């Protein structure tokens, strides 16, 4: 077995580490306060190539494998989570539908623009009545000659306001639904009848905008069906494929944040003196550090192994769900302990610990809840 990280990926980790230290950390509090990432930082992300991690080289991206993408995310989530979120949809859910199921024309038209960061892509699936039950989307696309007319409301759409392009999941046959009645469209933001709704107020992840998208008689040509005419009614599979791919990268995001919290806790507990000695020397604190480190180690092995398998062309449905489930829930446990170790300071906004605590709470929810991951794992275990 070879556990060595390839040199080019190690160099990328180093680049992200420097980017975090020099450019992101200094403005993290400001971004948190203003709930906005400055344009010059987004521009720097474009120059670094961060919008095209997983898009193949032939379409202008870096063509990184799953492990490469995970390693980049792991480093990038050691700071304010919103920065990773800004690039997340373009690298993942916003572009992968086009990459997996799009026509060659759609790939050539959209992927280079997404990879360069010129256009941000988002993924419009969630609705008030369709969360984990994705087949229950109410947004409808009615055929009208060589067009579809889309009507409906999407919500909780990450980067919905800054996106120039959305992968939209809509029902085209209410009777069939997930069995042939859901279609995936690529819709440009400039299309008449496509609007950004309310920007939602969240518990955390400030700086990353989550919003409603409104479709009001939005006419899109049939060629905007992802995969074209033959893929009408097959959008549920596209949506699930997109979410499936994102599971490992979500695990990586949780892992990076958990590692950062552990590093902060180790440093703090060695410096913070109570009862005449550093708190790290108290068994109760030492136990917490040990548990955090052990869980992080377990999560990392799981994640890298599943990523490695996927890069070797193996099906990793079960392993990816396990890694997403474990890493995201583990990071929440780590954050809880981190607040406890920092004590009162852990609850204060002067330090980033409370921000990690709030931000991480989203991870076991979005891009497939823990409950859905367990369902997938159980289904894989018991299938004939």
């Amino acid at each position, binding site marked *: 077995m070879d556990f060595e990280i390839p*040199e*080019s990926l*190690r*160099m*990328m980790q*180093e*680049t992200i580490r*420097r*980017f975090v230290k*020099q450019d992101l950390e200094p403005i993290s509090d400001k971004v948190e306060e203003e709930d906005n990432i400055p344009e010059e930082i987004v521009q720097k992300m474009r*120059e*670094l*190539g*961060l919008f095209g*991690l997983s898009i193949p*080289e032939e379409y202008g991206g*870096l*063509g990184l494998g799953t492990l490469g993408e995970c390693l*980049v995310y792991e480093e990038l989530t050691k700071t304010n989570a919103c920065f990773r979120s800004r690039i997340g949809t373009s690298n993942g859910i916003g572009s992968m539908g086009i990459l997996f199921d799009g026509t060659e024309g759609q790939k050539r038209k959209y992927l280079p623009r997404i990879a360069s960061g010129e256009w941000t892509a988002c993924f419009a699936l969630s609705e008030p009545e369709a969360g984990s039950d994705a087949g229950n989307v109410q947004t409808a696309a009615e055929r009208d000659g060589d067009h579809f007319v889309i009507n409906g409301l999407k919500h909780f759409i990450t980067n919905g306001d800054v996106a120039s392009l959305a992968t939209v999941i809509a029902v085209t046959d209410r009777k069939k639904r997930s069995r042939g009645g859901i279609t995936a469209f690529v819709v440009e933001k400039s299309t008449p009848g496509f609007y950004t709704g309310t920007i939602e107020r969240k518990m955390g992840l400030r700086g990353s905008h989550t919003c409603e998208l409104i479709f009001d008689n939005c006419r899109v040509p049939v060629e905007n069906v992802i995969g074209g005419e033959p893929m009408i009614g097959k959008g549920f599979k596209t949506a699930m494929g997109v979410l499936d791919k994102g599971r490992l990268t979500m695990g990586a995001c949780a892992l990076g944040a958990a590692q950062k919290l552990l590093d902060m806790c180790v440093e703090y507990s060695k410096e913070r003196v109570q009862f005449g000695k550093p708190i790290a020397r108290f068994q109760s604190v030492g136990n917490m550090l040990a548990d955090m480190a052990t869980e992080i180690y377990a999560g990392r092995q799981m994640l890298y192994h599943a990523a490695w398998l996927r890069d070797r062309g193996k099906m990793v449905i079960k392993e990816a769900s396990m890694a997403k489930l474990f890493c995201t829930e583990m990071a929440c446990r780590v954050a809880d302990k981190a607040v406890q170790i920092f004590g009162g300071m852990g609850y204060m906004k002067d330090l980033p610990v409370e921000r990690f605590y709030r931000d991480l709470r989203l991870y076991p929810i979005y891009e497939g809840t823990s409950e859905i991951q367990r369902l997938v794992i159980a289904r894989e275990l018991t299938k004939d």
Partner: protein
Amino acid sequence: MKICVCVKHVPDSAAKITIKGKNQFDESINFILNPYDEHAVEEAVRVKKQVGDSEVIAVSVGKKDAINTLRSALAMGADRAILIKTNIRADSVITSRALKAAIGQDGKPDIIFTGKASIDNEGFQTMYRLAAALNMSVASNVIAFSLDQERVLVECEMEADARGIIDMPLPCVIGTSKGLNKPSYPTLPAIMKAKKKEVKIIDLESLAIEKPMSSIEILELKPAVEERSSKELKGQPEEVVMQLIRVLREEAKVL
């Protein structure tokens, strides 16, 4: 214009060095491009852009893993690289002779940039020996560099608050220091491109360099024990503040 950059593969200063046996250390730790050499690569690439129609060649003497440091230089913008491969721990005499031979084979450059020292051995000698061997002018501790046709103007840090200004002809060897520039970290596309750039590997033995009359041998390695002691600053508040600023600047080097 042909520009060479000599770079060294050194242990990361943040790594925990564990001594093995009498004079070896555990080399499974992270190694990096020598930080002073980063300034050299950055300046070489800047000069290349300024002059146009130029080539930057990164050269290193070291074990096979030094190729990773050459890849870093390529990702920062060098065009191709040469690794002089050896398992011996080369001192500045051997290193400069090896560099001279390999650079000579490749064709004499107009400028050679290299860090003023490597952070592992801190010999501060390689650039002088290389310049002497190639009969080129040399300046070290360079914190400002400008090129005008066939002449180079550099500012060198002599000691705190003292700078020397040297006007020198090409070809020359420049020992770069902090303050010369701010090395940029490579972008991810540049790292991907660097994978495809040429790295020529030459065995040190094949260069048949002249055996030096003397060389440095490391007899024993010992961990450095940092002595900690407290110091009291005395005087009027204004004086104490000035003393504190001096200590922070010159001793702690945090300002």
